[in-house]
């Protein structure tokens, strides 16, 4: 098999552009997804089962259906409904955020429930409200424990962003496919993309490990 390095070099600027968009999409989705995930996770642990039910459904549906379908629904249904036209990047960020939010909600729920009940009681006995306790006592500690699973989720999200090529969001995989389409090649684009994804996830892991050990010693 002759590996066509030349076409990889030819496409390098596009792959770079795609990588930038992949990073941009992932980072914004992570931020939004974490925020939504926190709200949904808090919603799911409400004592009032009726109020918690919609959050429960949200998590079930988003975790139970393929991301691909969610991307289509949002790209062709939700976004045009509000703005009148499709926009792959907007839809991509929304789809990834909403999907990640479901997983992150579970991470938050587990993190919060892993904090010893004594912490809540200690703070409540000082006269702090439930909300104050959550904000100042439970969440800061839960957050520390959530870093490893959140890190995993971020890596998953980074890779999942490759699915956005189906709606032609010009991220990394999109350019990989364009390269394959032009030259009838399979290995060159996919291996190139795989290495870039691996590189990105390694950097992310490294950053997360640093963060984790810094928080640990704190």
């Amino acid at each position, binding site marked *: 098999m002759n590996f066509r390095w030349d076409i990889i070099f030819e496409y390098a600027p596009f792959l770079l552009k795609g990588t930038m968009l992949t990073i941009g999409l992932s980072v914004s989705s992570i931020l939004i997804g974490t925020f939504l995930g926190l709200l949904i996770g808090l919603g799911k642990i409400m004592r009032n089962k009726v109020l918690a039910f919609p959050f429960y459904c949200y998590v079930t549906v988003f975790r139970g259906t393929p991301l691909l379908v969610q991307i289509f629904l949002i790209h062709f249904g939700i976004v045009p409904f509000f703005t009148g036209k499709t926009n792959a990047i907007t839809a991509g960020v929304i789809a990834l955020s909403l999907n990640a939010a479901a997983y992150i909600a579970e991470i938050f729920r587990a993190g919060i429930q892993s904090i010893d009940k*004594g912490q809540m009681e*200690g703070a409540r*006995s*000082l*006269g*702090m409200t439930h909300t104050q306790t959550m904000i*100042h*006592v439970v969440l*800061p500690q839960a957050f*520390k424990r959530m870093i490893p699973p959140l890190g995993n989720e971020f890596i998953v999200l980074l890779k999942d962003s490759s699915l956005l090529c189906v709606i032609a969001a010009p991220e990394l995989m999109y350019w990989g496919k364009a390269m394959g389409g032009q030259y009838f090649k399979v290995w060159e684009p996919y291996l190139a993309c795989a290495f870039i994804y691996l590189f990105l996830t390694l950097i992310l892991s490294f950053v997360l490990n640093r963060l984790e050990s810094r928080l640990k010693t704190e």
Partner: protein
Amino acid sequence: MIKVENLKKSFGDNEVLKNINAIVAPQEVVVVIGPSGSGKSTFLRCINQLETITGGHIFIEGLDTTDKKVNINKVRTEVGMVFQHFNLFPHKTVIDNIMLAPLKVRKVSKEQASQRGMELLKKVGLAEKANAYPDSLSGGQKQRVAIARALAMEPKIMLFDEPTSALDPEMVGEVLEVMKQLAKEGMTMVVVTHEMGFAKEVGDRVIFMDEGFIIEENIPSEIFDNPQQERTKAFLSKVL
């Protein structure tokens, strides 16, 4: 100060407190003893409304805390509580542990909270640990910080739930010392403990509980030297 009337508390089918009546006078130190599972902790937690009671009333300074209209967070600021496992906030330094509630609940200024916090740390002999994290402290030090933290809210009453039972024998003394000091200063206290020495020395009154009832209550010397009930005798013979 505290008046408990016909207090009942069940967990599901399990009735843990069965009609408790008790009064704690201002500046009084009441020691609660009894076998494991007799409901001592639950009793304290009910006073502080950490458990929703199933029946009866609890009055704190004349205020019925079971009344829906009473702000329970307000009540809790008047009632400090110290737990067996300290429940310090591990992500905050000692001084931040102490300052948190005054800042957030009493809304005092940072300077004021910090000044008062340092005073309290001095009082419990830990001024030099202000910026340490709880995990670097010994058990006895942790418990003293927990006491200082509760005192920072300037409560009228302090509840202690086996404050020394998670401690190494060497550290028990230092915590009891702080508690004795508090009692001397006139703090109203309810203390669940297995430390009979403390009960004898500091307690104004001892309550013996078993199976959700108050079996006997009296001044310490009477309870220890002249218990009236069989169950009290049996219990004391084991722990003394």
